[in-house]
């Protein structure tokens, strides 16, 4: 007697993102074991990330090096200008990178941090004399008229523009002191109301090193490697007082700190963290946002030797953290958190992104060896990239019984004539069985673009909208647990995984 096929529907698979922390068997099917080059789209589905389109047409000064810094200089007039750094040079411009490195100035590294302050842009990095860009040219900070106190004591790796001052920290040989400039004078670190504070006697565990600075909720947050101190009243730094100390949580790199408006996100040695702003209580509870990939993050942290870069984009609703030396980027969806407070996270492997910048307009600029690129489209500089999804091990609620997959029916939204590989494996086997199909073609109608050619009439008669592909694929084999995967090359079109419907026979108890 034949048995009835049991339908197991994975609706919006992986909409909770990757989870490598919980046991695969106990996981919610909404998690994913792998979600590469994916994001959580606006409908809560896992979808392919956007690619990048290179804007720079002349990156000659960059050579074969990557742009490691992109910064949007905002003038008080409201106009903006893109500044960048790479190949031991400073640039301005987007399509053409114009070298603005001060004459005779030798740059030994490309790990600049750039901030806007009082109609100027200031470049700081470790053991390099700071550079200031006034909208026309870049000069050494010490050469600015009225400059004072510009010595190696303030050649810090971290700079913050807040409370009407520049704040500098992480100086070689003096990693416990924060220096602040005179009020509204970024080139005066010796006069006026400038000053410094040494935290040697403030660190909650006796010793730490300043990594990053942040201003949030009216507070000055000083990130150490494994502790955080918070000062209030930083508007008058001479009288600011300690508001809070956090022991055991620090920041691994200054470039992991991002503001979301309500939170300050930063990467600690145990994962992504945030300060949540509680206005009434004025307290700042600290939460972990990467509980689902903690060990993956830690593993990357321990082996990262190059740099970290991060980005927060409210338009894309993600926080990106890139481990540049390992070409890995994690994408945290910031629209909401899971039950445990974690962000939904996906991974962008083989990432060549070396820097990010979200512009005022909401566009996201990416620095690569090509120069400046924009996060848009679905190609990586005209190259395809692979979207991958793998479910956790699924037991369909009964881990003791054997399951025999008969049909796999993925519902895919988007794509255009793309080959989709459906993969499945039983009982934790890493050798997957693969079946594939090709999505339909779609030529979406765009505004002011003729449907049948430049001179066709009518201009645009029909549009298919976003193509939805729902196919039924045969499956074979059986096991107590099963992993279902989907891979497809993204080559110009969006792809979202709406659902996967699995028809299986439930067998005997093993």
């Amino acid at each position, binding site marked *: 007697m034949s048995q009835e096929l049991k339908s197991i529907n994975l609706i919006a698979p992986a909409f909770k993102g990757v989870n490598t922390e919980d046991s695969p068997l106990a996981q919610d099917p909404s998690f994913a074991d792998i979600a590469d080059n994916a994001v959580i789209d606006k409908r809560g589905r896992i979808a392919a990330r956007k690619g990048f389109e290179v804007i720079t047409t002349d990156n000659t000064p960059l050579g074969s090096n990557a742009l490691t810094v992109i910064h949007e200089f905002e003038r008080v007039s409201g106009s903006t200008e893109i500044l960048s750094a790479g190949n031991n040079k400073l640039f301005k411009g987007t399509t053409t990178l114009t070298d603005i490195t001060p004459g005779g100035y030798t740059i030994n590294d490309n790990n600049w941090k750039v901030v806007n302050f009082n109609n100027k842009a200031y470049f700081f990095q470790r053991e390099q004399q700071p550079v200031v860009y006034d909208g026309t040219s870049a000069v050494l900070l010490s050469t600015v008229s009225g400059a004072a106190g510009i010595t190696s004591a303030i050649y810090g790796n971290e700079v913050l523009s807040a409370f009407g001052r520049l704040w500098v920290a992480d100086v070689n040989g003096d990693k416990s002191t924060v220096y602040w400039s005179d009020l509204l004078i970024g080139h005066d670190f010796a006069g006026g109301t400038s000053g410094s504070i040494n935290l040697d*006697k403030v660190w909650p565990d006796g010793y730490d090193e300043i990594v990053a600075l942040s201003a949030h909720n009216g507070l000055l947050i000083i990130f150490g490697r494994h502790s955080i101190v918070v000062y209030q009243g930083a508007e008058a730094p001479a009288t600011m007082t*300690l508001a809070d100390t956090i022991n055991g949580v620090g920041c691994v790199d200054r470039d992991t700190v991002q503001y979301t408006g309500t939170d300050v996100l930063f990467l600690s040695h145990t994962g992504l963290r945030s300060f949540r702003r509680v206005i009434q209580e004025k307290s700042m509870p600290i939460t972990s946002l990467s509980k689902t990939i903690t060990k993956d993050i830690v593993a990357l942290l321990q082996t990262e030797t190059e740099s970290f870069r991060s980005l927060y984009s409210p338009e894309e609703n993600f926080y990106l953290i890139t481990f540049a030396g390992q070409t890995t980027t994690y994408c945290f969806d910031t629209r909401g958190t899971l039950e445990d407070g974690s962000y939904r996270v996906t991974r962008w492997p083989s990432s060549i992104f070396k820097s990010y910048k979200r512009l005022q307009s909401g566009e996201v600029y990416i620095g690569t060896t090509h120069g400046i690129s924009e996060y848009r489209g679905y190609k990586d500089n005209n190259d395809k990239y692979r979207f991958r999804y793998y479910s956790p091990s699924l037991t369909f609620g009964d881990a003791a019984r054997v399951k025999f997959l008969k049909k796999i029916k993925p519902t895919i939204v988007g794509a255009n004539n793309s080959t989709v590989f459906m993969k499945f494996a039983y009982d934790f086997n890493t050798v997957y069985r693969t079946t594939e199909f090709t999505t339909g073609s779609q030529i979406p109608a765009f505004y002011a673009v003729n449907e049948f050619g430049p001179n066709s009439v009518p201009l645009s008669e029909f549009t298919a909208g976003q193509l939805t592909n729902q196919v039924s694929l045969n499956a074979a084999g059986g096991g107590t647990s099963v992993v279902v995967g989907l891979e497809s090359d993204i080559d110009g079109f969006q792809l979202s995984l709406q659902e996967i419907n699995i028809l299986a026979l439930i067998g005997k108890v093993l």
Partner: protein
Amino acid sequence: MSNGLMGINPTLDFQRQMKNQGGILQDATDGDVIGTEEVMDMAGGGTSLTDALLSFLGGGGGQGLAGLGLLTSAYGRLGDIGQRGLSLGQELAQTQLEQAAFRPYTVTTATGGQFMAGPEGQYTMAVSPEEQALRNQLFGGAGQFYQQAAMPTADREAEIFERMRTTMSPEEERQRLALEERLAAQGRLGVRTAQFGGAPEQFALAQAQEEARNRAMLGAMQQAQAEQRQQAALGQQYLMGSYLPQQQMLAALSPGQTAAAQAQQAQLYGTGLFGEATASGIDALLASGLGQANLMGAAGTGLLAGLFGGSGSGSGGSNPVRDLIDYFRNR
């Protein structure tokens, strides 16, 4: 005894009085009164001369000679009276000098001090041994105080300042520690500012402490100067105190000096009375001598006038003077 031409002899009482007052008493009859015998001696004496003189006198020459002798005697008498007056005046002055001479005296105070006025006019004061000992002590103390007052005040200022700082330092240390704890609690121990150097509270505390230090320094200077003034004042007081026995003795001297002055005044007054009385006696003596001389002169004049008035009225009359001259010429 004279022929009674000379003055008046004083009574015995007057003579005694005059002698008691140092006066000069001389018997008026004992003077060199020229008598008849002396005139005769002056005329040449001897028998021949006597005879000649008798002859001459018998011829009226005697009358002339007597008159001439009286006049001569009166003349000499007047000169003697002047000499006598001068001599008596000098003797009286000498006597009065001796009577008015300063008489030494001594004033002794109740505390044993003495003031002695010597006969040569020197004055000597001597306090009692106890007063002298006290005076020496005070005088020495005054010297010490003045010496201390004259010393530079820098060392004393430093000494006072250190003592003040010793008093202030514990509280300053407590304030510093309290601030350190407060700054540590606020996480601000490491604050360094271009404006204040450290934290504003540290600057304020340091400023307050420095101001206190400055005030202490100024206070030490003022205290040292006050002490210097005090030393000088004490020296002055000691010095004044050291002269106090002398002042008190001088104050006590006034009554004694008044008594001595009164005695001297009485002495001078008596001397004056003596002088006046003696002068009156001398005047009377001289007046009587003058009277005698006048009387003698008048007598001589009268004799001569009688001589020349009786025979000299005609051309054949005799001139006793010429006769006398002729007599001596013809011999």
